[in-house]
């Protein structure tokens, strides 16, 4: 363990991954500013992985900032709160901030400009709370993973409480190019993050926290070290800069030397990973009782007039954010939510900011790959880049001809895009893998549907048989009665 602490050893250990051009200089200089309120906010009920929230407000209802507008449904879900005070003007379908542009149930709120908070319950000493109370507060505040996956944080904490977690890993690597929202958050709000770390340590009963930050963010490392200095349990570790360092499984391997089993979770090896933004949100929820209603977003890209780091109320349309940044300098060749390596293409600037939006990028044509795909020359660059040690070229070749079952390791692929990034033939490898994953899920769904339909069919045939039997019995009964009556009539006179 001690040997692993050496930066040299760590650097040698990391043999996977890629070195995308970071392009963070312009954005990392910008401190976090608060975005002025938009007039209209579109708050989707599905901003997390799991089941969507269910609206609990009605059209015309006045809401305060932080008021519950969508209740969680099911075990893996998260509630949604009003990002500002105002009036609910519609509850209906609105295009999701998703490449498909498909509609999602959305509560639209007209802001009244007062931004008045709901009476919230602050806690003087969060460390006096029972672990279960902390989990409940995090759940009620709708905190989800802010790194992009948006997995409900309370579920993760509850999982940690059930298993023996000894180490909390704090993900401050921020390995995506352009993005600097976590960097700025660590520089400016390190004390709150460290308190968030200590709250989660307390909640899951872990002994220590290791905060990993890529070494291209020296200011963030210094700020976090200063904030963590009084606490022995919290240590800040500089990590080599390598994409995808911010992926849970890679971060765990670099920080602890262990690997998460393929079919397991990080809690199985006694670690829990939380993003710095998530820990800040947890601190706000537990200490101040404030639900998650805003987040820091990096706004950047060559098509944009100026880059910014903005604290944005959830539900703010991207257009409003971009206009605040001085608007577009040119028509963007591509709009993205998140970073360029794993980010999603946005259908339009009307898409709202949600809990998992770490960035809004308006990229110019010169920032995007241009070459068309050509045949694979099996050079093996993708094999060297894959952080999961897969053979992307082999998998894609099988998927291309429809042999999805032959694409070994599809389940292990984390869709980081390193393979596509290095491919000299410009083959959209990670696109192939996401296509195959979707197709396999759809097949699985189809199979379940087939089974339920078969059950329904047999239920129907049973019902028809029963009805026929009952009908026959009834007829037989009537006949017998008639005959009895007839016999009675015959014998009566």
């Amino acid at each position: 363990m001690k040997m692993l602490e050496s930066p040299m050893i760590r650097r040698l250990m990391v043999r996977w991954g890629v070195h995308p051009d970071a392009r963070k200089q312009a954005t990392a200089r910008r401190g976090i500013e608060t975005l002025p309120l938009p007039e209209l906010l579109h708050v989707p009920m599905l901003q997390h992985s799991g089941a969507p929230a269910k609206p609990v407000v009605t059209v015309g209802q006045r809401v305060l900032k932080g008021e519950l507008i969508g209740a969680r449904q099911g075990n893996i879900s998260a509630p949604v709160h009003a990002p500002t005070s105002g009036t609910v003007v519609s509850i209906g379908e609105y295009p999701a901030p998703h490449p498909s542009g498909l509609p999602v149930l959305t509560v639209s709120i007209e802001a009244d400009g007062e931004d008045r908070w709901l009476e919230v319950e602050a806690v003087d000493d969060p460390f006096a709370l029972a672990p279960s109370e902390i989990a409940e507060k995090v759940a009620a505040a709708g905190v989800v993973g802010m790194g992009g996956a948006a997995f409900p944080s309370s579920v993760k904490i509850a999982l940690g409480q059930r298993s023996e977690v000894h180490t909390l890993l704090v993900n401050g690597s921020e390995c995506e190019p352009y993005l600097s929202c976590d960097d700025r958050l660590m520089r400016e709000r390190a004390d709150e993050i460290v308190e968030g770390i200590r709250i989660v340590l307390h909640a899951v009963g872990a002994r220590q926290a290791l905060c990993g930050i890529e070494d291209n963010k020296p200011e963030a490392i210094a700020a976090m070290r200063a904030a963590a200095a009084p606490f022995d349990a919290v240590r800040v570790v500089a990590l080599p800069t390598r994409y995808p360092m911010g992926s849970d499984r890679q971060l765990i391997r670099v920080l602890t030397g262990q690997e998460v089993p393929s079919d397991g979770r990080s809690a199985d090896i006694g670690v829990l990973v939380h993003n710095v933004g998530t820990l800040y949100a947890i601190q706000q929820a537990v200490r101040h009782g404030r639900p998650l209603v805003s987040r820091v977003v990096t706004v950047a890209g060559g098509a944009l007039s100026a880059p910014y780091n903005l604290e944005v109320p959830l539900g703010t349309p991207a257009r409003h954010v971009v206009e605040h940044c001085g608007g577009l300098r040119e028509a963007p060749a591509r709009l993205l939510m998140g970073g360029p390596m794993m980010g999603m293409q946005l259908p339009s600037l009307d898409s709202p900011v949600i809990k998992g939006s770490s960035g809004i990028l308006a990229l110019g044509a010169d920032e995007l790959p241009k070459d068309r795909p050509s045949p694979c020359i099996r050079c093996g660059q993708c094999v060297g880049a894959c952080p999961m040690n897969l053979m992307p070229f082999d998998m894609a070749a099988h998927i291309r001809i429809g042999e999805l079952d032959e694409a070994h390791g599809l389940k292990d692929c984390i869709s980081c895009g390193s393979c596509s990034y290095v491919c000299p033939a410009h083959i959209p490898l990670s696109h192939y893998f996401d296509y195959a994953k979707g197709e396999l899920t759809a097949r699985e769904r189809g199979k379940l549907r087939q089974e339920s339909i078969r059950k329904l069919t047999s239920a129907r045939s049973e019902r028809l048989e029963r009805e026929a039997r009952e009908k026959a019995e009834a007829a037989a009964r009537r006949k017998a009665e008639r005959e009895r009556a007839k016999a009675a009539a015959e014998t009566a006179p």
Partner: protein
Amino acid sequence: MLAIISLTTLGLALGLALGLASRLLRVEQADGLTAEIEAMLPGSQCGQCGYPGCGPAAAALAEGKAPVTLCPPGGRDLVQQLAARLGVEADLSGVEDSMPMLATVNESLCIGCTKCFRVCPTDAVVGAPKQIHNVLREACTGCGKCVDVCPTMAVAMVPMPVTLQSWTWHKPLAVA
């Protein structure tokens, strides 16, 4: 002379070996296969394949008399499963376009005659006499029987809508 004898012997020996192999290694064509295939079929007995039900269709498939693409409700997945089980090449060209379909009831035309839900093999149509009928999305196999019997053309087949949860990435275009 020697050549003729050796070649004849060789031919005879190989012929014998082939004959034995075809006898010993014969592919099983028992009822087991029919049952297995029947289990793969939707089982809604809709009859769209032209056979009286899923059982006869499975038998025809097992004997190789029917194409693996015969079952519209089964869709592309079923074609692939059947092709894999029977060890034949699946021609997906005709199947690719057929999206999973769903019956819908046009409420302004429905007269509540109950004909559709009496014919539905999965009880996917709900309603009562003289009431507007509705289709349960989860139960409908898209067999289209209800469309045929509806006296007012109130039932129509529409492609199953794609939702945020069911959306998947398209297959990347092939290399130029």
